[in-house]
């Protein structure tokens, strides 16, 4: 069943293709990798990320499970205990919630509980976030729950190349990784480095997507393209914005983020997840702790509102867009008028 990685294969054009290629390459290279979840086999997943994999690797490697998320994750824990490397798909963000006890009380804690004797090399893929017109429970940004759970790595790609690289790295990791796939970027295309398509970035390194001098936009996942767009638009207003793509929320790359903020002196954190208790608070707080005397203004946040994710027809009002980001940039006390406090 095991196939070699096909290095001549066509470069993935979309994030969905990159994810699929990462899964295929991982399955081909490492017989201990197993893909499992609801509809991941015959159907190829509701987003078709696992399309064709069951046929290629067999149903024992790519398995349609019964419809029970705690059971899926719990079984994956047992498989990992026995040395396999399960890659679990949660069909949508909100459908990962039934598995929370397994996640918090076991997945995140097993290595620590056993003083390192038992590790759980498993990857939990979660198609997440909004912007695709999904009905309720299909558009949650639930990263706040994950980052507050020590023992998990939390990763979110924003580009086609990172989708490939980060998923390979996650599957290769000896620790559990929450792999957040921005649904609305599944069909996005962007530059893919043809030199090193299989290069695997280590988890935990942020990247500066755009250099700038006026202020730093700190962001990740689905908000990265939005911030890039905002940075372009900002030029017209005379702001030269830097954009940092975190890629990994846990571990957090304080170094890259702080280096940028110290350079620019101003920062806005942008994410789709709700503001209150969301990752932005953590990021703003730690940047402020570390760069206080470099800051010309408080670190601001542009986030989803503190409301349940809206119905499809209203979601555009909720999602942090270019205008809202520029409004925040405008409030970064360019004239030091102290009006904020």
């Amino acid at each position, binding site marked *: 069943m095991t196939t070699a990685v096909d290095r001549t294969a066509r470069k993935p054009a979309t994030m969905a293709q990159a994810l699929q290629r990462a899964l295929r390459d991982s399955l081909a290279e490492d017989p201990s990798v197993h893909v499992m979840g*609801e*509809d991941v*086999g*015959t*159907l*190829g997943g*509701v987003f078709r990320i696992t399309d064709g994999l069951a046929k290629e690797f067999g149903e024992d490697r790519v398995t*349609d*499970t*019964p*419809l*029970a*998320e*705690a*059971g899926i994750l719990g079984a994956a824990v047992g498989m990992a205990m026995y040395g396999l490397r399960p890659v679990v798909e949660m069909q949508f963000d*909100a*459908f990962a*919630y*039934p598995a929370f006890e397994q996640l918090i009380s076991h997945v995140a804690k097993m290595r620590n509980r056993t003083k390192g004797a038992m590790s759980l090399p498993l990857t939990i893929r979660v198609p997440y976030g909004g912007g695709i*017109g*999904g*009905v*309720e*429970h*299909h558009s949650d940004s639930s990263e706040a729950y994950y980052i507050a759970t020590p023992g998990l790595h939390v990763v979110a790609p924003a580009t086609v190349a990172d989708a490939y690289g980060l998923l390979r790295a996650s599957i290769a990791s000896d620790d559990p990784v929450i792999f957040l796939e921005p649904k609305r970027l599944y069909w996005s295309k962007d530059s893919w480095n043809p030199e090193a398509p299989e290069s695997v970035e280590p988890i935990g390194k942020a990247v500066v997507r755009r250099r700038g001098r006026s202020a730093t936009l700190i962001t990740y996942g689905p908000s990265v393209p939005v911030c890039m767009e905002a940075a372009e638009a900002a030029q017209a207003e005379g702001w030269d914005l830097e954009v940092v793509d975190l890629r990994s929320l846990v571990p957090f790359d304080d170094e890259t983020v702080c280096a940028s903020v110290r350079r620019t002196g101003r920062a806005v954190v942008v994410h789709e997840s709700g*503001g*209150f208790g969301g990752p932005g608070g953590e990021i703003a707080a730690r940047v402020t702790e570390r760069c206080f005397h470099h800051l010309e203004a408080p670190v601001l946040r542009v986030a989803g*509102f*503190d*409301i*349940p994710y*809206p*119905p*499809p*027809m*209203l979601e555009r*009002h*909720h999602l942090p867009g270019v*205008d*809202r980001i520029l*409004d925040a940039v405008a409030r970064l006390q360019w004239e030091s008028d102290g009006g904020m406090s």
Partner: protein
Amino acid sequence: MSKHSTPVMEQRGAHQPTPPPAWKPRTDPAPLLPDPEPYRVLGTDAADTADSALLLKLYGELVRGRRYNAQATALTKQGRLAVYPSTTGQEAAEVAAALVLQEQDWLFPSYRDTLAAVARGLDPVKALGLLRGDWHTGYDPYEHRIAPLSTPLATQLPHAVGLAHAARLKGDDVVALAMVGDGGTSEGDFHEALNFAAVWKAPVVFLVQNNGFAISVPLAKQTAAPSIAHKAVGYGMPGRLVDGNDAAAMHEVLSEAVRRAREGHGPTLVEAVTYRMDAHTNADDATRYRTDAEVETWRAHDPIALMERELTERGLLDDERIQAEREAAEEFAAALRAGMNADPVLDPMDLFRHVYAEQTTQLREQAAQLRAELEAEQEQAR
């Protein structure tokens, strides 16, 4: 050493086998087990005693239900619905679930069961609100005592138990009927709900529509049980296995379960064996996981056809009556079309109005932000 550490040497000798003291079978399992085959009425001897008026009523509902499914599917193509999970082929179970309930009873539908809600009297435009996408629940649940359509699978089942239990505690005559799919029975919430219902003897009926698939996953990958109805015995409630395409059988079995619940005998698990003729939703491609041949075997077991045969043999149905039912269904569909073609009136500020009974300072600030943005937008548009 604890008081237990000395084995009871002195009792030796009086050696007669006794069962463990605590063990007493609390329920006789035999009556809880389902029939060996799905129960049927149409085309069997049981049909002889079926009430003609009821059969005709069911027939009308089936025809309307089929038309409803076709119309809703068409609305997805016109972009009026974001998505629609059809119950074409499952109309018998859907309408029976609604018809067996009394006014004061409650229906707990899953995301697929808009037809049941419509058959209970809900305006179809409201029933489809979730799928149109202007708001999450398109109706006031208290209007017809229909809980919000539940998307997270099986999570509505404990709600039904709690509501029925609450009603019983208050001395009210209320039965809750909760619907779930075959896939949903694998969820922990299914288990916990059935267990609570049985322990509390809550007046609930659990209706599982086993339509063969959970999206692409066939029943054989979902459970190895002899039938889903067999799960009932593990909770100490009766399990009933029914031909889900036989509206008369569904009505009879559900009525009986509702009566048991109403009379204080506790919950029942009913498995309706049926088939989803359409894809999972309009967005799904069913050819990836099932054959046309399989679909065709089920077309021969169509709920409307089964009922038409029965009624025709009884001489209750002629082309005129069929025509009349179809026309009624067409009218219904036309009204639905009209209702859905009207653009819903949306107020973005609703996003902040119902998160809490009283808006928090934080939400007031955020609402103000959005209001300002919208005003600026309008300003620009001028």
